[in-house]
């Protein structure tokens, strides 16, 4: 993994509690540039919380998150500036229902990066074109299928040209026949060298796409390694049990 280049993200000793419930209990994780890391683990193991912490949507209790050398959890950092560099795509899409697809994609480039409407639209249309969504540009999200909505959400995050993309179970809310179109978009991003941290229940996909897989259990990274090792020869008993359940559910 050291061959992959410079460090894109470093997490040291991250703790996070909601009231009494400790959701993250000391996460250490390093992502290199252009690396794709998948987070697997049962519901409630802390995958989503970890991603939300990295995007500063949740304040952390202890530890440090460093993005490209800069500590983003330090006091007094400009969170809006940091969020521009980190894209996140949510399980429930969270598109803005009162705007067209084009409005969704161009909002942040116009308001945050100060792009002119014409430039923002040209760039957005190029992205939508690339992901087969150009003809939906002027529709509102409720006119789109779930798969299309999620692809728009990905495009919306990409329009900010993030250095790091966080994907939070982006296919979990989709009908089975719509999952493939979203996964193929993510595959294309991986081929293009996008650094990604992906929480997913799609084990087959994780095996194909990840440079490294991390198994989260009860707020800790219990085991990590290349997918070939994690999926065929897990060292930890808990990992083995989890994968066994996944196989029984027919998801691998």
């Amino acid at each position, binding site marked *: 993994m050291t061959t992959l280049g410079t460090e894109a993200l470093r997490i040291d000793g991250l703790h996070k509690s909601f009231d009494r419930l400790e959701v993250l209990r000391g996460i250490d994780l390093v992502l290199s540039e252009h690396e794709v890391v998948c987070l697997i683990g049962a519901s409630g193991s802390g995958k989503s919380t970890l991603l939300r912490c990295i995007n500063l949507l949740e304040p952390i209790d202890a530890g440090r998150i460093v993005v490209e050398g800069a500590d983003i959890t330090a006091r007094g950092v400009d969170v809006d500036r940091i969020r521009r560099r980190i894209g*996140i795509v949510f399980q429930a899409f969270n598109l803005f229902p009162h705007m067209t697809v084009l409005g969704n994609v161009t909002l942040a480039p116009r308001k945050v990066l100060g792009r002119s409407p014409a430039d923002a639209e040209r760039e957005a249309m190029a992205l939508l074109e690339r992901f087969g969504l150009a003809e939906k540009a002027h529709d*509102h999200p409720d006119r789109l299928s779930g798969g299309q909505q999620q692809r728009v959400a990905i495009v919306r995050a990409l329009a900010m040209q993030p250095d790091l993309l966080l994907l939070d179970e982006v296919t979990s809310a989709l009908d089975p026949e719509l999952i493939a179109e979203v996964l193929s978009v993510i595959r294309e991003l991986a081929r293009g060298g996008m650094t990604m941290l992906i929480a997913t229940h799609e084990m087959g996909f994780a095996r194909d796409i990840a440079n490294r897989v991390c198994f989260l259990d009860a707020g800790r990274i219990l085991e990590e390694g290349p997918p070939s090792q994690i999926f065929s020869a897990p060292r930890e008993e808990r990992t083995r049990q989890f994968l066994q359940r996944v196989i029984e559910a027919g998801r691998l």
Partner: protein
Amino acid sequence: MTGPIPGGGGTILTPSSGRRSRILDVGEGRRAIAIAIVSSVLFFSAIGLVIVNSPGWPRFQASFLDAEVFAASWPRIASAFWVNIRLFLIAEVLILALGLVIAVMRSLPGPVFFPLRLLATAYVDLFRALPGVLVIFMLGFGIPALRIEGVPIDPFFWAVVALTLIYSAYVAEVYRAGIESIHPSQAAAARSLGLSQLQSMRHVVLPQAVRRVVPPLLNDFIGLQKDTALVGFLGVVEVLKAAQIRQSATFNFTPYLVTALLFVLLTIPMARFVDWLVARDQRRAAVGGR
């Protein structure tokens, strides 16, 4: 997305549209309509006969339904009503703006904005607690009585200020309910793209929130239309004051009936418009768009 505006529901033949008010929904077919017409005629004729034959009717008729007094007082009262409408329109614009500012102040999170939240909360608590007439008296009589240089003494001005202060508190709460009805994931999505707190409010939360609260806002404005009559206490010759003047000149109550008629004529279209908006929103929700 926007359906055609229905013409008020006069002709009713297709019940499947679900667009009409429920009162006018008599069922399908000519037979149902015929029954509805006959039963209405009988019912209201019976009530009418009872009223007309009651012992006090002739005196009531002379006192409230005097055609001559009606014709004589109509022009002056109707032109006084124009004062109410002006008052209403000016106050409404100010209320929409001030109410929004207060609601946004109350919805800003974080310790930095605590004083703004406190101020907005105190404002809403205060002006919802005070009787409207009291505010109108205090401002309309009290402040001009201070005789401070440069402070207006025009009662119309203070009427607008008083109504704006009172109604902004209510309207701020309506806006705030709308803001809080927008799922936090919308703000999270906006913030994750790098939009600031205020940008997220302005471009993502508020447009959705305002759309949701248009019907309750309009309801508040029906209340405002009627409360413009309170301003007569300050000596502004608005519709109720004008009616009072006519009443004491003629010793006849028909001018009040004229006033009542004017308010009804103003309010009913507004009420039907609110009904239509609510029905439209329900239809959209049923279609599945969020």
